[in-house]
């Protein structure tokens, strides 16, 4: 952590800086994923997690292997995948909203078994 | 392309053809064609087999073929038949044939019914032709799973419960089998799953002591070994006619066949050591099933308990481990398969008319439906061991064989088993007297019709088979005995 403060104002952003940002983004995403009730917010949280990974890709590539491009390609690839994923997810969310008028995760238990007390199977 | 594989392929082709069928007429036609082809094929096989043997081919298994399909574990699809498997294949074909005709008017979903039915049969055929432990296990599972759906969907009464119970208990048995098959594989050298090759090896006796009971119990569950038989009464009572026929007629034989082919053949030392435990259990099965059948009121329960008794006799005879008794065991498998199939077919037909299976609610049916009545009497007589019908030959071969073992335990158990012929007579005649003779109990039964043509085909085929086996037993008992001799030789060598 010390490197950030050592080089502060020198014009060079150290690797730790990028990792620090991405760490914050990652845990913010995790927090959002765990605590939010709306499917849309959960989706945004997942995007944040993915983006934090992208930042790491780019940063590691730049600092560790400056003469290669794999990290950037991977970042782009991830962005493309996450775009697709989001499209699918949003489609599902919209369908859920159309059917249930609701996008809260807690209210989605159509496929869940009823509570144990009601299901005494005859054996 | 091996000749024997056709037995597995025909059901699969029939499956595809059924999938394309559009109405009930086509479905029935396809199913009947498939079953008939299988019947003809088993006839050809028998002829070829006897011909080969007559030509002096005395290798243990005929028509051998191997196809590697999973190299890391040396799993082959290997096929081959001896006299015992040929007998079982004939039995399966006859019961498939009659089963199709017995379910001519199955409702609902006839197409799906036959799909599962033929899938089941391909598993059974595969089990009997294969001599690779793993393939055997796989076919066993193929035969097991469709049973759940067949009972659960097309059954009667508490069908979901029965289907679940039957499947779980049999799966439990197959779990034991899987353990023992892997054990046999590793301790026999770990480089082959082939029965014939393992039989050449020696599995350490300490290992056999653990593997033998696992294997025997695993197959014993399917062979209705006391106290693992309780799936049988409920399962048979709930199953639709053709499934009861196939299950009691053929699937229960998988247990006896496997116990004999895998458990005893591969682990003779442990078999000799532990036979007495299982002999006592099977002895109990024989007498216990018979006594239980005496007081039942549901026709299918009576027959299910009678199956427990008769299949107990199969395992009992196998454990006697001499040539005569083992031949008797295979004969009993054939005989029990045929007559129990006949029973279940007839019970299904009677139930389809009277809509009850309780013997207290029926009476005087002989007068109303003479064909079914007479057939029921014939089935009953076969079951109680009347000379000229199949039961007699099988039971007498077992008793004579069992009597060759002269120590006290064997003697006592044999005499106990022999008494079952009286108890069998009691419950068979009780049923016949109650439902067929006497006065008509329910006036609505007066107008019921006798058997239709497809029912007649089914019943007559079975009766012919029973009479043929019972009055001319020599050729088939010779065929079986010749195949059993090498196995008994190995058992004797292990003493």
């Amino acid at each position, binding site marked *: 952590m010390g490197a950030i403060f050592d080089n502060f104002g020198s014009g060079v952003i150290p690797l730790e800086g990028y990792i620090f940002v991405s760490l914050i983004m990652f845990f913010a995403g995790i927090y959002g994923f765990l605590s939010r009730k709306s499917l849309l917010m959960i989706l945004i949280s997942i995007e944040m997690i993915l983006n934090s990974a992208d930042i790491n890709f780019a940063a590691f590539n730049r600092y560790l292997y400056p003469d290669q491009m794999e990290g950037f390609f991977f970042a782009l690839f991830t962005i493309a995948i996450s775009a697709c994923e989001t499209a699918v997810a949003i489609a599902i969310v919209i369908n859920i909203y159309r059917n249930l008028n609701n996008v809260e995760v807690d209210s989605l238990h159509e496929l869940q078994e009823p509570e144990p007390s009601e299901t005494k199977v005859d*054996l | 392309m091996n000749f024997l594989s056709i037995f597995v392929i025909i059901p699969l082709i029939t499956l595809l053809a059924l999938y394309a069928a559009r109405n009930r007429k086509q479905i029935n036609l396809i199913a009947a064609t498939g079953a008939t082809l299988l019947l003809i094929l088993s006839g050809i096989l028998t002829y070829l087999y006897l011909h080969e043997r007559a030509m002096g081919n005395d290798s243990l298994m005929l028509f051998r073929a191997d196809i590697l399909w999973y190299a890391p574990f040396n799993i082959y699809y290997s096929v081959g038949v001896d006299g015992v498997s040929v007998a079982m294949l004939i039995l399966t074909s006859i019961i498939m044939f009659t089963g199709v005709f017995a379910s001519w008017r199955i409702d609902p979903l006839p197409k799906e019914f036959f799909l599962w039915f033929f899938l089941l049969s391909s598993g059974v055929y595969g089990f009997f032709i294969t001599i690779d432990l793993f393939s055997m296990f796989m076919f066993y599972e193929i035969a097991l799973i469709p049973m759940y759906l067949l009972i659960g969907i097309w059954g009667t009464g508490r069908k979901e419960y029965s289907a679940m119970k039957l499947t779980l208990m049999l799966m439990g048995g197959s779990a034991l089998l899987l353990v023992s098959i892997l054990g046999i594989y590793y301790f026999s050298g770990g480089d082959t799953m082939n029965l014939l090759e393992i039989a050449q090896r020696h599995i350490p006796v300490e290992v056999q002591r653990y593997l033998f009971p696992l294997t025997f119990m695993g197959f014993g569950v399917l062979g209705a070994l006391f106290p693992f038989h309780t799936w049988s009464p409920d399962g048979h009572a709930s199953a639709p006619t053709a499934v009861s026929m196939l299950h009691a007629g053929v699937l229960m034989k998988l247990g006896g066949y496997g116990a004999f082919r895998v458990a005893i053949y591969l682990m003779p030392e442990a078999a000799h050591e532990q036979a007495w435990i299982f002999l006592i259990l099977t002895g109990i099965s024989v007498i216990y099933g018979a006594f239980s059948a005496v*007081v039942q009121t549901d026709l299918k329960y009576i027959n299910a308990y009678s199956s427990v008794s008769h299949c107990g006799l199969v395992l009992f005879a196998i454990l006697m481990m001499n040539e*005569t008794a083992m031949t008797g065991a295979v004969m009993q498998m054939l005989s029990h398969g045929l007559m129990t199939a006949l029973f279940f077919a007839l019970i299904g037909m009677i139930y389809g008319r009277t809509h009850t299976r309780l013997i207290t609610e029926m009476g005087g049916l002989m007068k109303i439906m003479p064909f079914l009545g007479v057939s029921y009497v014939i089935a009953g007589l076969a079951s109680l061991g*009347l000379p000229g019908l199949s039961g007699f030959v099988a039971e007498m071969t077992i*008793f004579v064989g069992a009597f060759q073992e002269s120590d006290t335990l064997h003697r006592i158990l044999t005499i106990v088993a*022999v008494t079952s012929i009286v108890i069998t007579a009691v419950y068979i*005649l009780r049923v016949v007297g109650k439902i067929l003779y*006497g006065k008509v109990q329910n006036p609505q039964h007066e107008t019921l019709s006798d058997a239709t043509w497809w029912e007649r085909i089914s019943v007559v085929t079975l009766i012919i088979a029973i009479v043929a086996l019972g009055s001319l037993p*020599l050729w088939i008992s010779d065929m079986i005995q010749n195949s059993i001799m090498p196995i008994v030789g190995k058992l004797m060598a292990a003493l």
Partner: protein
Amino acid sequence: MEYTLYILILPLLSFVVLGLMDTKWKPVVAGTVGTAILTIVAALSYYTAWEYFSTANLNGTYQKIIAFNTVWVQFNEHLHIDMGILLDPISVMMLVVISTVSLMVHIYSLAYMKGERGFERYYAFLSLFSFAMLGLVVSTNIFQMYMFWEMVGLSSYLLIGFYYTKPEAVAASKKAFIVTRFADLGFLIGILILSYYTKTFDFGILTSCDANVFASFSGVTFMGASALSWAMALIFIGGAGKSAMFPLHIWLPDAMEGPTPVSALIHAATMVVAGVFLVARLFPIYITFTPEVLHGIAYVGAFTSLFAAVIAIVQTDIKRVLAFSTISQIGFMMVALGVSGYGGQAGTGYMASMFHLFTHAMFKALLFLGAGSIIHAVHSNEMTQMGGLKKFLPVTRWTFLIACLAIAGIPPFSGFFSKDEILAATMHFSPGLGVIMTFTAGLTAFYMFRLYYRIFHGKKYQTTNGHTPHESPVAMTLPLVFLGVVTIFAGFIPFGKFVSSDGGYYHIHIDPTIATISVVVALAGIGLATWLYRKENDASAAVARKFNTIYRAAYHRFYIDELYLFITKKIIFKRISSPVAWFDRHIVDGTMNGLASVTQWVSLKIKGFQSGKIQHYAFVILLGTLIIAAIVIFI
């Protein structure tokens, strides 16, 4: 003599054809076909007898001829069941008896069963029975005999239950089958023991009594008796079941629910003597190795004979009287076998037993057919419904009288000669037993004439159903007359010339003392019956009152049936089967269901972990990852 095979094949064929055709053929066609085939069989049997007795005699002894033999099933290198035809004096004699009586019954039934529902089925069953019984007597080995034994039991079951809508008939048929089946269990175990030690089923080897064959029996004992004694005693139990020896006799009186001609054929003349035939067949083994079992047979026979005679006195159903008389007469045959010696003139009992079997078959068939004719006329089995029938049924009456005289042992009727030989043999063996048997013979005369008088004499016949009884048609009276003639003359056959214990010549001579005593006793019995029953009077009722207890006990057949009922209903059903079934449903099945319930309970308990909420899962995953990471980093 391969043509003897047709004696078996033809009835079997007849059974199959008639059975398959069933109602497709008119009754008259079925009846004619059945009777015609049996006529051929009878002719073949007579020809066989003629050829056998005229050619098989070598140096004064009859040889055993194996006319046909083929392996039916092979058990191991020693044991195999053969199907074959063995001709020796007793089997040839039985062929003649069976085919004669069977033919008579076939002819008789044409009229008796006319118009019955299931007429075709009836003839099919008769053919089946003829096949099985003929096969039984010509068996070459004990297992073949056992097979036909079972088949005979089956045809008996089917014919007793012929009127299957009548509950009594169904119950009777069931009882007959199960009781004899129980006895056959003994037979089977006996065969198994015998074959285990001797390594053969073959009669030829067994009855040669070669010491080597029986050598492996030596020293093998069980509960104080030798294994061979056990085997032979168990085999006798089989014979006792079929031949209705006490206490396995209970099925026979009930078997009278079947059609009367069937009773004549199966339950009087042929099947019930199968047990006697069995003992006679194995006689050399009994006499050589296990004389104690043979003596046991004699005592069982004597007791049964007396016991059944006492019961016969008080029965009122005419067929029941005849049934008990049959039991009693079979007892005579058993006694004769039991007391017999072996070879030459010592084999009196053996010869007498076979002779009595022969004559008894004829006159008992005659009695039953006569009874059938009476029942046909008055439509009742009860003596109380009869009386004074002599002027309505002249042919029946005279033939019936001949048979009664024969069974009572009055010369010159056939029964006298055979019974006299039995009494002579018994006296020779043990005077005590001889006295008992003579007394029983007296009782026989008494109850037969009680029967005769109460049917044909006494009160005037009063019709209850509005029509006068009339003599039966020719098809029925013809067999009566034929059998009557045989009964009169059969006694003069030099029977010892044909059948004896060792196949040699046995010279019959009548001991004047014993003959006189037996005739006097028989006449006393007849006289008593004449006094009590000839004219309707109170004497019989007075006697019955005097012996009230024993009268009632005998009337209820000494409560043996109740005992059996108690054993089956109370012991087997209530005490064994029901608990077993309960145990199965609740303990064995309960354990399985219990396992399932426990599994379900456990899974319900741990089900909470799988909440179905994705955020819970994600949280647990995260936590797990952190913990694992911490472990990896810090440890």
